[in-house]
């Protein structure tokens, strides 16, 4: 069984080597894919160098221009669809926030509960464990969790988490259609609304080791409004065809 770890990276030259090193402990059968999202620093060169020394197969795709996190992640799903043979596609941040040891737990949860999408949740662990984001962001996360739970009927606690494992039905659908900006809550709701099985598993996260967040201070209001609107509008759509 082959699995692909998709690592979207934008200006992550500082954090990327440590992130790739942390993934080297994964067993055989895992492949890594760095999607360099038109970085202006040396992320692409660093990724190429790491590909030469990585124990696990490491692929590097360079998007010629910066397209945003959603497009970068979708490129990973497209890559998986084009090359075939992958079972699970795991999204993993390049900035060092995620702990590679939880990837196997996400996979196990997908297999055990027959999930199409399993999200690593910071809020299922004891409060003292790991980094849970700032107070303002936690409020936003709670709001989206409430909104998605209300509109889908599935209970979620961490809809903005970028540590997630998608099964074949989910990632094949994402390869065709994936939200561009702030994709995590929207894609989670899309799965729930279209009959894909979603779930969560507890994870601990760290503070980012480098780079900058895609949601800047002044963009938070836009983020809240845009994602809420997208979720509500998505609820109004007819059920869509998912990949078999």
């Amino acid at each position, binding site marked *: 069984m082959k699995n692909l770890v998709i690592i979207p990276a934008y200006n992550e030259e500082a954090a990327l080597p440590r992130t790739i090193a942390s993934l080297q402990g994964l067993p055989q059968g895992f492949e890594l894919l760095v*999607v360099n999202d038109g970085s202006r620093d040396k992320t692409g060169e660093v990724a190429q160098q790491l590909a030469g020394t990585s124990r696990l197969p490491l*692929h*590097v*795709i*360079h*998007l*010629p*221009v910066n*397209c945003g996190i959603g*497009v970068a992640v*979708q*490129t990973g799903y*497209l*890559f998986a669809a*084009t090359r075939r043979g992958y079972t699970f596609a795991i999204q993993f941040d390049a900035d060092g926030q995620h702990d590679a040891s939880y990837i196997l737990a996400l996979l196990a949860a997908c297999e055990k509960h027959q999930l199409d999408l399993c999200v690593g949740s910071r809020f299922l662990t004891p409060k003292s464990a790991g980094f849970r984001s700032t107070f303002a962001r936690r409020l936003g996360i709670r709001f989206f969790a409430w909104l998605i739970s209300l509109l889908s009927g599935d209970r979620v606690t961490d809809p903005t988490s970028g540590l997630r494992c998608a099964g074949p039905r989910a990632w094949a659908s994402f390869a065709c259609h994936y939200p*561009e900006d702030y994709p995590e809550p929207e894609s989670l709701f899309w799965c729930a609304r279209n009959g894909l099985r979603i779930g969560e598993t507890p994870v601990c996260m760290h503070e980012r080791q480098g780079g900058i967040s895609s949601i800047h201070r002044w963009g938070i209001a836009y983020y809240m409004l845009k994602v809420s609107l997208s979720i509500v509008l998505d609820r109004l759509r007819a059920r869509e065809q998912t990949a078999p």
Partner: protein
Amino acid sequence: MNAELLMLVGGSAAFVLTLYWVRSRELHEKYAVVWMTLASLLLLCGCFPQAIMSFAETAHVSYPSMVLFIALAAIYSFSFTVSVSLTHQHQRNIRLTQETAMLEYRIRQLEMALAGQSSAAGKPQTRRK
């Protein structure tokens, strides 16, 4: 100059401009159709001002307000159409960017494989700049 004459001049100018841009291949025919419809509407309003007047009376608004309303409705419709076109264009650009990136990846892999074969066969390697 009265409002009717202004509409006649505006309509004629819109017609000429549209034809000029289509002729020089700077404007696609499918958009030209929309702009020429607008120019025709302006010309009709200039030729038959009673139409707007009766429309304004029916709606219980003044003549200038009705002209403004029609102009704003036209601007809104076209701006909206442009937004939809832009969305389609954006989606195409994104997919092209992704396909380009994946093709570049495949070319890089092929070049590496070829370089490996060349060195295994003892041939001199050619190196791309």
